[in-house]
């Protein structure tokens, strides 16, 4: 069970697409920084629908996205303490 750490926008970098090529169904994804913007796009929401996703609350609030992110059961909004916990709950972290 791996935590995949994406920290760039899907429009600038294919880190997330590459991650999705190799991801296992049980893995999770942390969409940090501009990576989280893809959640505003329905096509990306669908591509990511089967994975457990984490998003940092500071990243969301910094971007004024609190009311705009989809209310979806697979998305967990976390703080940095929970980010640390998530790294320990997974066997390793891959930063793409």
């Amino acid at each position, binding site marked *: 069970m*791996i935590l995949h750490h994406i920290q760039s926008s899907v429009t600038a970098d294919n*880190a997330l697409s*590459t991650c999705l090529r190799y991801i296992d169904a049980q893995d999770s994804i942390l969409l940090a920084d501009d990576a989280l913007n893809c959640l505003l796009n329905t096509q990306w929401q669908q591509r990511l629908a089967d994975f457990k996703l984490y998003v940092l609350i500071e990243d969301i609030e910094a971007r004024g996205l609190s009311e705009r992110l989809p209310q979806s059961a697979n998305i967990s909004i976390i703080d940095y303490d929970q980010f640390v916990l998530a790294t320990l709950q997974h066997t390793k972290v891959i*930063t793409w």
Partner: protein
Amino acid sequence: MKKVCVIFRHSPIGNTSSREGLDFAMLSASFEQEVSVVFTDEAVLHLLPEQQPELVGSKDYLATFKALSLYDIDTVLVCQESAKQFGLKESEFNFEAEMASVKQIQLLIQQANEVVVY
């Protein structure tokens, strides 16, 4: 000793990510870690012969990839899907590497203790 998988996903020329990733891979191997290497996305272009990075002001670090086996880095996989995208055939590879399916690369990633991406 840890199993360390180093994934290259950026093009060889035009950025220094791979050069610094290669330094890391070789140093890890010389510190007795079990290192494997994967080329995916545009990084499959590392395998192309006849590159001359010095023409655009880069160091010719590509030659160093030929030394991976001297550092006991025996698992060197190239993503078949990416190679196909860039029109690259296994017969053209300029250093020892093996074309691999997504499944093979997934397995390597899962078995590694750490995976770093450059």
